[in-house]
């Protein structure tokens, strides 16, 4: 199909080559971001201010972190619908543990924070462990596995809290990890940066990193090449929910309460962020840098539309249309990639 269209006009291909070459190198997203920036700057004078951009950055952090994990799941050819539940569960459990510790020893704030974060992240990751086990060892389809765990996890979170928010965390937690900032940059942004860099090194500098791509590219081939496919799949889902859990704790810090009702839109939004970043749902294709941009893009558009006072019904329409256009644009790009390959 695509092959036909890739090459309709060799002549043109030769002429506009230079533009395309950039286009191909850097991908579609930078362009989209640029366009979005320009449009919204024109639509609202409060948009292109350092404060607002920082604001966008902080708002996008949570989706960004989740998307990093989601990317791993997509790379191996699956996906993880349970990230939303993981966010909720880690938030609830983390908050409870932190509150409890704070009550037990009111003067040891940092201990409480540490214990809480560890508990929350552990709880969230547990869901990943179950997902991983199901997918890797029992060969359950990632869709069903993570969908099932979504409702299991949500049920547990509600059961723990009875639906009411969990309070009583040390104020410092919110002040630092929710609203604190260093050198004018919000703390959550540092956390996200740290995670992204760590994952980057893991993905692109270590053999295991490659195996994610290999498993997604062709499981059979990978195992014939001596890659431990089961192990790879397992850690994929553990890592995925680890990231979601961290995001959950940061969100908790921001909300100052443990909430069972957060993260519902995370699964689809994170997958969307990955897909507009060119991550293939068939597995084996996708770059981390782009995923970061993808999450930023979604955050930027939502913020921009709010500032431009686009009424919210229209916003959902616009956002949907944008996602589709972004992917179509990426399709076009891929066709050039083919034509420029050699």
């Amino acid at each position: 199909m695509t092959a036909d269209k890739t090459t309709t006009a060799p002549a043109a291909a030769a002429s506009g080559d230079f533009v395309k070459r950039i286009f191909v190198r850097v991908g579609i997203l930078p362009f989209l971001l640029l366009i979005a920036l320009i449009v919204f700057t024109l639509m609202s004078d409060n948009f292109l201010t350092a404060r607002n951009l920082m604001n966008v950055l902080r708002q996008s952090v949570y989706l960004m972190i989740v998307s990093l994990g989601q990317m791993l799941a997509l790379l191996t050819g699956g996906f993880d619908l349970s990230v939303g539940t993981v966010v909720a569960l880690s938030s609830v459990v983390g908050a409870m543990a932190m509150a409890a510790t704070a009550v037990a020893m009111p003067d040891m704030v940092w201990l409480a924070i540490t214990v809480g974060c560890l508990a929350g992240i552990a709880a969230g990751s547990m869901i990943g462990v179950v997902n991983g086990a199901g997918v890797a060892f029992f060969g359950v389809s990632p869709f069903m596995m993570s969908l099932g765990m979504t409702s299991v996890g949500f049920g547990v979170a509600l059961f723990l809290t009875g639906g009411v928010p969990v309070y009583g965390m040390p104020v410092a937690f919110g002040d630092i990890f929710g609203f604190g900032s260093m050198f004018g940059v919000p703390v959550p942004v540092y956390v996200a940066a740290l995670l992204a860099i760590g994952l980057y090194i893991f993905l692109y500098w270590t053999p295991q990193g490659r195996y994610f791509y290999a498993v997604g590219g062709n499981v059979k081939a990978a195992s014939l090449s001596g890659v431990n496919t089961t192990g790879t799949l397992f850690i994929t889902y553990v890592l995925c929910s680890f990231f979601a859990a961290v995001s959950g704790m940061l969100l908790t810090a921001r909300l100052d309460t443990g909430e069972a009702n957060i993260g519902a839109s995370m699964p689809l939004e994170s997958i969307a962020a990955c897909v507009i970043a060119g991550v293939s749902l068939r597995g084996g294709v996708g770059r981390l840098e782009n995923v970061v941009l993808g999450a930023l893009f979604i955050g930027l558009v939502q913020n921009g539309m709010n500032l431009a006072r686009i009424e919210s019904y229209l916003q959902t329409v616009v956002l949907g249309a944008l996602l589709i256009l972004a992917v179509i644009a990426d399709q076009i790009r891929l066709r050039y990639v083919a034509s420029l390959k050699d």
Partner: protein
Amino acid sequence: QEWFPFPVEVWETMAMDSARTKMDYEPLEKASKAWDICVSFPHMKDAYWLGVDYGVTEEAKRLGVKANVVEAGGYTELNTQISQIEDCVSAGADAVIIGAISFDGLNNLVGEIRSKDIPVIDVINGMSSEELSAKSLVSFGEMGAKAGEFLAAEHPSGGEAAKVAWFPGPAGAGWVEAGNTGFAGAIEGSAVEVVDTKYGDTGKEAQSKLIEDTLEAYPDLDYIVGTAVTAEAAVPILRSRGLTDQIKVVAYYFTPGVAQGISRGQILAAPTDSTVIQGRIAVDQAVRILEGKDFMMHVGPELQVVTQENYKDFDPTSTLAPDGFRPVFSVE
């Protein structure tokens, strides 16, 4: 015609349990300048919040101030609501009116906005923050209680027991838990017996399913009590099963569907918290604060239970947006 004076209750402090006095609310005539007020709702997907929207925007027009309404898209979107409010503020709002998704989840944000010396008014849902400038709301617990009291009055202790199925709404939502507690408290010691509590999303589809299954599980039911959606969903189901006379329906808040039901004698009763008025008062409070005029820190319309008897002398414009009202997101 004007909506005021309107009977309200005024609390001493922000605390729901502080002493309260009844009085009539009188808003400002006009605002001195066209303040820019930001209004944030959990969502604009049902008639209840449409009513609030109507109140807020109408009042903004009446006072001659700008209003920009944002909605997070649902009760699971706390993070979105926070982002939206932040965006509002960076867009230069003078005051913020919040219909909160979470009772505590927005406290940090409120603190931050207040530190910029921007007034924050809490409408409808309630927040626990100490730094709120004003509250225009009634406790949803009392709404539940009103519904409960109504039933308890019908079935005082000693009378033969009334079997009630109770549908508070989506598990976890703050207003649901509040309503639940209120209701439970009010039927305490009466002949009303809650045979089952079924949480569920306030989609009509989900509620219908719950109702039908409950009818199967409890063939000898006397009352279906729950959200407005539950009541609306119950009407056709009961009609189709010919149970309309056996099983009565009570809602614990008010929507056009409920109004229709009551007027047609399909729904027994429902308390109203005069949603529109709460919205109006919130805007008035915001303007008063901005203009340094004196204002009441914590106001809420008097609750009244609308029944088939008193329906004719009930003024729906205090609670519902008029038919054909389209949601307004910004007032210039």
